[in-house]
Structures are given as structure tokens and as C-alpha cells.
């Protein structure tokens, strides 16, 4: 049987030669993310902003009309209302801003909308998040992402050298910021699931980075006479096949969630698809490229004998 080869064997690409171009690319997407965050901000969902969300399905599949629904709900004077199709033509997502007054009025608004559209639509989902909870979730989200970054940094610091930990964490921050930026640029709803996607992406990206770093560490000991530049390139090339294969299997799974997982999960999957792609990119072009700016110790000579079998030693 002829096996599938995504990456040719014994590749010898000079990844680091294009590191300037890669940095430029990172710079551009990071700036775009920041610009968009300043101009567009994030399209916070009710999880963070508070408010009301209803998912409706038309009882009469053929005559469902978004404008009709819009008109109907506008009679409630509920302030800012957004209505969009959700997955299917008969399904709608209605978002209503948080109402003036206390909690009771918020809750009452749900009942008002429900009784207004009861005749023509079934309510598939209804959510209300009070402003207090929204603010708490925002804080908790920032806290969780920071906690993840810090604990990862400390772990890598212990297992590798501090230079690795800094390079890895900068690569991770790069991934997190551009994923947030993507949500801002595409104006996708930023909600609890997005935080989950960002953290999972961070987990995936760090996994990728650690695999390459692991090889860098090994090669630093093995090829003591070679330059760091050579060693970094070689490490990327040696792990390239694994990097690509794992990205492909993960992306396969994610695209399947995107297409078949239903409307609720599609944004979630999209965030992670981006995250896997950018995470793979950053492991090679951000994390390893950053290592070139440090002069990492290649370890003591004594290690040589124990780590590398005789026939593999080059010097």
C-alpha cells in the first residue's frame, strides 16, 4: 500500500531565513487585531454584557420572515434588538439589550417577548444574564486566560530554560491576541464558548511548541559544535512531519464540528480552526524564531555520553 506523505522525508527548509517575513506577518495581524479592537471593540454576547437571548423557530416553515419578526418585536420598545438567522432559515436568534430598571423588569421582558411571538414561533432556548453576572464572567475569563498562561510559563521554565519559557509565552500571547482580534474583525459574538476556544487553542499551540522545543533541547546537546541557527532549523525540520500530521487530524475534527456540529458550535469551531492554524505557525515562526535572540547554553560536555549513542555522535 502506498502511504500518504504530507511532508517529504528529511526536509531541510531554512525556516529561520524567512523569520523577518514571518515577524512582519505577525506584526500585521497583531496590528490589525489591535486596530479592530479599538475601532470595533468586541461583539460581546449576553454572557458578558448582560441581556436577553432567545432562539426561535418558526412554526410555519414557509412563511417565516425576519422583517415580520423584527417589526413585531420592535413594538415592545425594548431598546437595542438584534435579530438574525441562525443555522436554518426558520431559526432566528433574537438578542435584546439589558433593560432599564431592576432585575424584575429584565425577567418580565422575556415573558413579554414570549407571549408576543408564541403563536408563530416555538422558543427553543431563552437566556437572561444580569449585568452583575456578566461583569463577573468577564473578570473570571480574564483571570482564567492569565492563570493558564502563567502556569504554562512556570512549567516550561522548570522543564526547560527560562529563555524557552519566554519565547513560548510570547508565542501564546500572539495566538490569544490574534484569535481575539479575529472575533473583533469578523464581528463574531464573543461569549463563554469563545473563552473555551481560546484556552483550548492555547493548549494546542503550547503542545506544538513544546514538541519542537523538546527537540531543540535534545539537539542542543547532540550537536554541540553546530550553530544555534542550524540546530533550530534542524529541530523544526525533524518535527515537521509530526506537526503537519497532528494539525491535519485536529483540523479534520474541527471542520467536522464546524459543518455538522450545529449552529451553536460553529463559531466555537471557527475560533479553534483559526487557533490551530495560527498556533502551528507561531510555534515555528514565533517561538523558535525568538529563541535565536537568546544565547542558550548547550549544556555540559558530560551529558554527551549519556544522551547520545556512540554511532550518532557527530563530534
Amino acid at each position: 500500500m502506498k502511504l500518504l506523505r504530507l511532508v517529504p522525508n528529511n526536509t531541510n527548509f531554512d525556516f529561520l531565513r524567512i523569520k523577518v517575513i514571518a515577524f512582519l506577518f505577525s506584526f500585521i495581524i497583531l496590528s490589525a487585531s489591535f486596530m479592530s479592537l479599538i475601532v470595533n471593540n468586541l461583539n460581546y454576547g449576553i454572557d458578558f454584557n448582560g441581556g436577553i437571548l432567545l432562539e426561535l423557530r418558526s412554526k410555519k416553515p414557509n412563511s417565516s420572515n425576519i422583517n415580520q419578526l423584527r417589526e413585531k418585536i420592535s413594538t415592545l420598545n425594548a431598546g437595542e434588538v438584534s435579530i438574525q438567522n441562525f443555522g436554518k432559515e426558520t431559526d432566528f436568534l433574537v438578542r435584546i439589550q439589558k433593560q432599564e430598571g431592576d432585575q424584575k423588569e429584565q425577567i418580565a421582558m422575556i415573558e413579554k417577548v414570549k407571549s408576543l411571538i408564541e403563536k408563530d414561533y416555538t422558543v427553543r432556548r431563552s437566556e437572561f444574564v444580569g449585568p452583575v453576572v456578566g461583569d463577573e464572567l468577564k473578570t473570571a475569563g480574564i483571570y482564567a486566560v492569565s492563570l493558564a498562561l502563567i502556569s504554562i510559563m512556570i512549567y516550561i521554565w522548570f522543564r526547560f530554560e527560562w529563555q524557552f519559557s519566554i519565547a513560548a509565552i510570547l508565542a501564546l500571547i500572539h495566538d490569544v491576541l490574534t484569535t481575539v482580534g479575529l472575533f473583533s474583525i469578523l464581528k463574531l459574538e464573543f461569549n463563554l464558548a469563545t473563552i473555551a476556544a481560546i484556552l483550548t487553542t492555547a493548549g494546542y499551540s503550547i503542545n506544538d511548541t513544546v514538541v519542537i522545543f523538546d527537540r531543540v533541547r535534545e539537539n542542543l546537546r547532540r550537536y554541540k559544535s553546530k550553530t544555534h541557527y542550524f540546530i533550530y532549523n534542524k529541530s523544526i525540520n525533524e518535527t515537521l512531519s509530526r506537526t503537519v500530521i497532528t494539525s491535519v487530524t485536529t483540523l479534520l475534527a474541527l471542520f467536522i464540528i464546524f459543518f455538522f456540529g450545529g449552529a451553536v458550535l460553529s463559531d466555537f469551531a471557527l475560533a479553534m480552526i483559526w487557533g490551530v492554524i495560527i498556533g502551528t505557525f507561531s510555534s515555528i515562526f514565533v517561538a523558535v524564531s525568538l529563541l535565536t535572540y537568546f544565547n542558550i547554553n548547550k549544556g555540559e560536555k558530560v551529558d554527551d555520553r549519556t544522551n547520545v549513542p556512540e554511532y550518532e555522535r557527530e563530534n
Partner: protein
Amino acid sequence: MKSLSKIRLILIIASVIIGILYATPNFFYTSKQVQSFNFLPGKKINLGLDLQGGSYLLLKADMNVVFAEKLDSVLSDIRSLLRKSKIGYKKLSIQNDIISFQKRGASSNEKIRSIIFSLDKNLIVENKLDSFFIRFSEQNKNNITKSTMAQAIEIVRRRIDETGTNEPSIQQQGDDRIIVQLPGLDDPSRIKKLLGKTAKLTFQLAHPSIFPEDLDEDSKAPPGFIKLQEDKNPDRFYMINKRVMVSGEMLKDASPTFDRNNSPSVSFQLSALGGKKFGRVTGKNIGRAFAIVLDGKVVSAPVIQTQIFSTGQITGSFTVQETNDLALVLRSGALPAPMVILEERSVGPGLGKDSISAGKIASIFGLIAVMVFMLLTYGMFGIFANIALVCNIIFIIALLSMIQATLTLPGIAGIVLTMGMAVDANVLIFERIKEEFNSGRNILDAIEAGFQRAISTIIDANLTTLFAALALFSFGSGPIKGFSVTLMIGIVTSMFTAIVITKYIVFLYSKKKDFNSVYLQD
């Protein structure tokens, strides 16, 4: 070779069998079908509310109201203690949650302080010259919050149980919050209404000479009296004696009924003690009106015709549903604090079913896609990786059932994602074996070295991912927590399957005489 020991094989087979036993019930749809498999050890995985449909409510007890009430009762305790000890005082009042008064006469400050501390030693008492300031300490507030919440959860549970909702879950969260989960109930409006009433019921005498007709918004209450609104008619006021004749705690039972005019009403029965008290007061006040006060509003104010003992009726302009609900909340007792709804999420059964089927399709397609890809990439080794992948999924399902975790839609996404990421450990191992083999080692050495080297990478890489999942767990509520749990379990099981199961199969295969190294060559 050490790895081929019998013990290892037995352990692998045992773990897979246990996994299958625990995972099996999940593949039968209804719980009835599961019952016919009751020889199996496990239960099904709990489905989250987003999959089975249901409602989630996050309630907060308004503790400020409770603190104010308790401070009020501290104030009256202080008043009666000072009187009893014959200590003069003036300007005894509460402002900004602080009780203050000035002493009159020559009593020593120390004596007054010790009298106040005899009430509760945790109170904070400050005094400047003749003025005293008393407020609750954090300790006081914590104690009050604790006992209030314990009681509140009990009452919330009773009220929800009375509605006949299936398997509700009621838990405290943080200091002053309650999470209510109601599987299968997609419209929680009745529950919300029931929990929206504290249902503090009191019977109090009305003022003998000031009638509703004499009162408007600006009327002031004479000492010892309080002006209260009518429940159904906010423009009508009553002047009510502050002293409570009988309160809701003395109710034994309440049920919806109809009065003589055939309009819906609630009949109640008082406890022996309550009946005695009620009888005494009503006996003395025939001809006067008394008010039935619910949550600070007057429901009705009938005139006492005869002495009433233990049974009576509450009439007002009620609907049948209202009398049902009123009877229910009276029976279950008053909430010690008003409840505010902070968050509400309800999912209808239709969406839940759609989500389950979308999740199933995504899982099956995901599994097939990854398996086909692995087979195409690694040939025979791909088959090994696929065996490990299937074991991995069995383990994930089994562990989720064992710890009775809650599977949510993001959780299903977590499983599908794990399928993609789980093969990573195998990929790392195979790539390493290939490398070792192509650098001139013989096949057995290459396999040995490949595993040995790959494992340290696998552990480093997975532990860092685990940190991200742990952060997610600490942050998450509901669905997100479910996602992080599946992710964590997936990381652990994929490490186990790669390091133990794949290794065993590969070693077993490499010992065969017709071992074909074609899959390893460049």
C-alpha cells in the same frame, strides 16, 4: 522484552473490559433499556441541560434586606434591655446600618457596653462621650448569611418539590447564591413566580379609627403603626398596628379553596400555639378589622365577626392559579430573604435533541475521518493508532460515566477535538521510531528508543495542555466546565493509550517473523 509481560497484557485487557462495561449503558437510548442491562456496573453519563432541555436559574439572596431586619430586632432587644436595667436613653435609631443612641443619666459606659455585648459578643460597639454606635461585625454578617442560606435552600427546595418538577438540583454557590437546575422544564416562569415571593404572612390589627378612606400617599403613621399598600390596588392604604398577632411560621397547612361567594381563596390551619394566640386576640377585638399582610402588602382586611381559633380563610381578588400558588408558598414557609434572579438559561427539548444528533454525527464523522487519515498515513501502524483511538474513546465515555460527569454540547465538541488531538501521541511515537530506524538502528532498537524518547515529549506536551484545561475548569460554569472535564479526561486517556496500549501492540507486532518494515522506511 519487559513490555511483553503477561501482567501488562492482563492489565490492558482488564482496563479495556472495565471501560467497555462502564461505557455500554450510554449506547442505549432510554433509561428503561438501561435497566434491562442492570448487570452492568455503570450508569449513563448525565446529559447537561443544553442537551436534555431544561432550565438553569442563578438566584441571589438579597442579604441587605435580612441584615436590616436583623438590625431592627437588635434595636428592639437593646431597647428592652436598657429599660429592664433602668438605663435612660434617647434618640435610639438606625441610620446607615448603624444603631445609635445617647445615654441619659449616670450609668457607666462600661455597664452599657456589657449589656449590649450580652446580646451578642460579636457586635461592634463604639462610643463617643454619651453616644453609642452599634453595628454588625463581619462575623455577625457571616453567621446571618450562613443560617439564612441554609434556610433559603430548604424553602426553595420545598417550593420546587411541590410543583412536581423532576429531579431538580438546588445548590448553594458562593456565599449568597443558589443554583437551581430543572431538567426537562423549558419554561420556568411558574417557578420564577413562586421563588419571587418571600411569602412572609402576618396577621396584624388595623388602626381602630384611621380607615383606608382617610389615607393617601402622604399620610404619616402614628407611633406603633405603619402604613401599608393594598396588594392589588396600590392607591389604597391601610394603617396597621406594628405588632404581629400571628405569623406564617404558625401555619400548619394551607390549601386553595373557594369562599362563600364562590371566589377562589386560601384556607389555612394554624398550629396549636398559633391558634391559641389568634383566639385570644380575636376574642378581644371583635368588631375591629385585622389585616392579612403578605410580603409587606395588605391582601385583605376583614372585620373580626367572632372569635377565630385555628382555621380561617384568606380572601382577596384572587384567580384560581394565584390561590394555588399562594397556598403552596404558605405551606412551604417564608423565604428568609428575597431572591433576585441573576441569570436564567432555558433550553427546549427540540434544541436539545437537535444538539444531541448534531453531536452524534460530528463524533462519528470525526472518528471516521481521523481513522482513515491515520490508516493512509501510517498503514499498519495507523491501524494500531486506530485501535488505541477506539480504546481511548471507550475510556473517555467510561470515565465520564464513572464520575457521573455532565456531558454538554461543548463537551461533545471536546470529545471530537480529542479524537483529533489524541492521535498526536501516536504520531509522535511513530515519527520517532521512523527516525530511529532510518538512522541505522535495527527495528527492535528503533522501537524501543522511539518510545523512550517520545514519551518524555508526550508528557511535557500534554501536561502543558492540561494546565490550560485546568484553568478552563476553574473558570467555567455549566457547559464550559463540561468541556474542560472531557478535555482533561481526553488528555489523560490519550497518554495512557499511547504509552501503554500502542506500545504493547507495536512490540507484539515487531516480534512477528514476517515483520514488514516497509511502513518505517523513508
